[in-house]
């Protein structure tokens, strides 16, 4: 075995495999980020406001998508964007990366993409007489996976494993990925030749799924106006460093979740499992991710604790893509979102204060 301890810090410009965009920024921080002063609520609120403002200058009329992207980032999750091409999926991910001043890489998934293109590969360095690890595209803060369903299942799973573990294993050696780490994958919903739709188990690894949707008339007009001559992405100034983001992650992790909210989450999960309109309900991991996303959402709203409102707000984006609608119900036009809305309308909101 060869020592490779230098590798995580050694990646940077010039090491990108095919399909990666040039990334001119400074190298990402090491995975073990330095401990720093806990961020206070005001600073957190100011940062999140700034990030969203910066993103909204580029993405017109998609506040919800922007909000959710930031929520997922702060909840250490991954985002699945499911929409037709050309509605700004990639732009959203890039804007987020630019606003955060962190590294971004983009992978265009194709049927012939190999797992090593994603994770990286060990190459024999003749001069040093050693094997050197060349990190793949996954070694970035923000990874954009375009049309993830066009790659073979093997390649998909290479990506998904690193998403879950926040590490990559090549030739028996594990490499930590940078923090923050977030994959924004896009998926084309239209059935096409040669696509491999993500199986349920893989979809489960994405914290949330949204569809961008078309902008409304005024937003589209504004988009045509602003994007005509200049690239608004260039005007975006980084408003937060990765260190800031790491501190924000700490704030999110410290958000209080009351027993009542946990009860509510579990009740919601059980409601999806007992519903006769669904073939597959929400998994425990789904509920965990829902709670984590809710914590981020609560922190973004300036609260130190999660409200049932956060759960309600995030239930559909976090849960809907993991649920399988029963065929009979689907034939009647029922969607997973309908089932969730129904369950939310029925479940009583627990209101027992924590007992000490």
């Amino acid at each position, binding site marked *: 075995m060869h020592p490779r301890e230098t590798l995580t810090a050694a990646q940077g410009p010039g090491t990108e495999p095919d399909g990666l965009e040039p990334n001119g920024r400074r190298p990402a921080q090491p995975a073990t980020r330095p401990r720093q002063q806990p961020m206070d609520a005001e600073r957190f609120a100011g940062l999140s406001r700034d990030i969203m403002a910066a993103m909204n200058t580029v993405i017109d009329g998609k506040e919800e998508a922007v909000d959710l992207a930031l929520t997922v980032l702060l909840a250490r999750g991954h985002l699945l964007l499911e929409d037709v091409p050309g509605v700004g999926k990639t732009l959203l991910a890039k804007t987020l990366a630019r606003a955060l001043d962190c590294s971004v890489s983009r992978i265009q998934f194709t049927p012939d993409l190999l797992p090593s293109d994603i994770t990286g590969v060990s190459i024999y360095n003749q001069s040093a007489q050693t094997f050197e690890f060349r990190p793949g595209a996954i070694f970035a803060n923000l990874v954009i996976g375009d049309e993830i369903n066009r790659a073979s299942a093997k390649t998909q799973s290479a990506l998904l494993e690193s998403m879950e573990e926040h590490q990559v294993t090549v030739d028996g050696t594990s490499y930590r990925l940078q923090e923050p780490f977030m994959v924004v994958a896009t998926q084309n919903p239209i059935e096409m030749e040669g696509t491999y739709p993500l199986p349920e188990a893989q979809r489960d690894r994405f914290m949330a799924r949204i569809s961008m949707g078309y902008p409304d008339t005024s937003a589209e007009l504004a988009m045509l106006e602003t994007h005509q001559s200049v690239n608004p992405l260039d005007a975006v100034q980084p408003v937060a460093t990765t260190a800031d983001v790491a501190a924000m992650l700490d704030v999110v992790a410290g958000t209080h979740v009351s027993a009542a909210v946990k009860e509510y989450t579990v009740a919601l999960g059980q409601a999806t499992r007992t519903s006769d309109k669904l073939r597959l309900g929400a998994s425990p991991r789904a509920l965990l991710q829902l709670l984590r996303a809710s914590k981020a959402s609560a922190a973004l709203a*300036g609260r130190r604790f999660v409200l049932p409102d956060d759960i309600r707000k*995030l239930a559909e984006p976090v849960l809907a893509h993991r649920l399988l609608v029963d065929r009979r119900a689907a034939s009647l036009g029922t969607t997973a979102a309908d089932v969730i809305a129904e369950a939310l309308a029925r479940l009583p909101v627990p209101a027992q204060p924590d007992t000490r």
Partner: protein
Amino acid sequence: MTGTIAGTRPPFGTHDGGGPGPGVGGGPGRGWRARLRLFLGPPETGPARWVLAVAVLGAVMGASLGFRNVMLDYSWMPQAFVVAGMTAFLPAVVRRWPRLAPLAPLAALAGWIMGLTLTFFAGTAYLGLFPSARTVGAAVDLATQASVSIMVNNTPVPVDPGLVFVICAGVGFAALLVDTLAVTVAMPAASAIGLALLLLPASLTTQDGVGAPGFFGAGAGYLLLLGCCRWYAPDGKLRPAANRANSGTLARAAMLGAAVVLVATVLPAAVPGFENGAFPQGTRLGSAGNVAGLDPMISLGNDLRAQSGVVNMTYLSSSDMPLYMRLSTLEDFSGRVWKPSPVPRGLSSGLSGLKPAFGANTAVPVAQTVTQVAVVNLASTWLPAPLSAIKVADLHGRWSWNPATQTINADGAANTRGQVYTVTSAMPDLTPGLLEAATQKPDSKLDPIFTELPNNVPSIIKDTAKAVTKGMTTPYDRAMAIQDYLRSPLFTYSEKTPVEKGYDGAGMKVLAKFLQVKAGYCVHFSAAMAVMAREVGIPSRIAVGYAPGDRTGETALADGKTLQGYEATGRDAHAWPELYFEGLGWVPFEPTPSRGAVPSYAIDNIPGAPGAGRNDFLNGGNTNAIPTPAPTASASTAVHSAVAAPVAATPRPERISASVVGVLLVLLALAAPAFARSQLRRRRLAQVRGAGSGGRRPAGGPREAPELLAWREFIDSAIDYGYRYNPSETPSLQAAGIARLAGLGGPEFAGAAESPGTPAGVPVGTPGFAPAAGSAPASTRTAAKSAAELLCDAYENAVYGPPPEEPAAARDDLADAVETVIGRLKGRAGTWARLRAAALPPSLFSRNR
């Protein structure tokens, strides 16, 4: 068609191609059951609901012991138990499903109706439980019957199906009320209303009041209920296991209870007004087993004042003169309460050949009289009989003759109720001449109890006796002088004056007062004559019984004699003195003006009172028609105000019974929800403001935090004014909804009011930072809106936020906010909504939180 079985789920990916077919076959059945299960939610576990049902039942049955003095016996109790049991247990069944818990009062109502049906009208009902049209008819009949027997009977009332029905209905209704208040509404303390309803009839209509069993039963039941509610259902939410009460609570409760009992027993003795008066009835813990009541004199007065027209007995008599029917005699004047002398032991129980201990000489002519008595409505251990009985026939039970007092009293359990018997008596044919001749000293063998006077005879009695009999030499003359004095116009017959002036009953002090005021009724007149007779050396005793009643016109023939029919009613109850003349025996006199019939030997011309005593022969009971002379009236009003407080409420207890009690019950029942609601609101806001907690943490822990109480009151008030509470809405949505209801729908709540599932871009309000601080309360509108926001934020913080570091502090701002919102809601509600919110607040009946 296909093999799909209801209840099973086809495996994933099965392509049976059945189309809609299996959906029809399997879908609805499965869906129905699953939906029901989902709707009902997880069932309650643990014994809480059963414990509470038993507590409610125990409290109600304990309080129903208070009917002891209303009814003659406890034979109605099993039926009442069944009715109350069904009323208490049906809600417990329903409470298995928390979703159905608000319907518990309906279940209690159903249990009440079914229990009554099962107990009384099983024959007319479907399956014995479900009332049919005939059941309703039967119930109306029974109720009518009951109202009749309430109207015509004195308490204690004989067990009669109608009354039992009414009592069982009352007990069941109390169970319903107690269950609803204690469990559904979660106000166990207020459930005392239901228990008090059960105690009211006894304390309002009976002489003895509730009695010790009822008092202790109701108290113990109430404590049981309070305890069980605290342990098993604090704040109206059933708990699977009992909440361990800290020992301090029990000790405090025990001390408080002891103090209350002490005050209740000591106070009546200490306050002068309680001594003789019968008020307040509830505080008298009547001694158990005393059929005749506490004090025969007071009972008599109560009977008279009641003016009861109920026929207590009828009799046919061969006597030319109307007969006094004697029950017992009072001769022991020594105590505070005058009593009959103790019945000697070893009396023979035969009732023929009866002889008085000191009767008339054989030389005195005797008139044989036959009297056939039928007791209709009188439960006494003393047998009504004319004086000088020599034989009593056709009696049930064992009775014995007391020759000293010439009374017949029961051995053991015998009772006069329903007895029909014949008394043969040998009445000495007395004339003034014979009496005038009886000048011998009384026989020394006569029991001294008939001559003794206590040392404390007030001087006014002695002086009056001396003055009245001045110059009279023979005992007869003296007796006549005393009788004439008492019958002179100086004295007024009044049943009320003694009560109003606080000298009702018997005793030397009472007598002195009577001689001053010169108004009273038979008790006072007879006692005065008896004492004054002893003062001048004539042995005396007071006979208690019935004055001759009204003639019925009925006649019968027996032994060749014509018997005249009479009936004696409650208002014929009477007392008169009997004086002993050596050689003639005991001779009745009639000092009471306008009552009874003066015996022929005792009629004298009274100067200055022409006809005052003459025309009252058989004048019926209409004594109240006699005008009260002016001096007494004015005196009575003058003194009235001074003495009124303790005793004024006493007269006519029975009259109050039917209508007033009914109206009271209805009013109480109607006012109960409004009262309960306002008490709840007052208590909650007081707790929010920190009053009563005395600086320490509220007992309920975090559940009783001011933020939570304020929120509950906020929601309940909104529900009262028509807000449709939806438990699956989050607090912010609810606050937004209520703000809209209060006419405050604004953009501030737009974010919160969004439909669920929408990935909202706007953060949900900005809780955590007090919104009220920024918004200027320029108008009530903004004030109320920020009030709703303030409440919502405080509530969210308390429920979902991290546990506070320091104990809950008083939140005046929240209480003010609740009041602001209530004011706003009230202002916007229509008249009808406002009325409903006040009288029948829906929040009381929809509490499921």
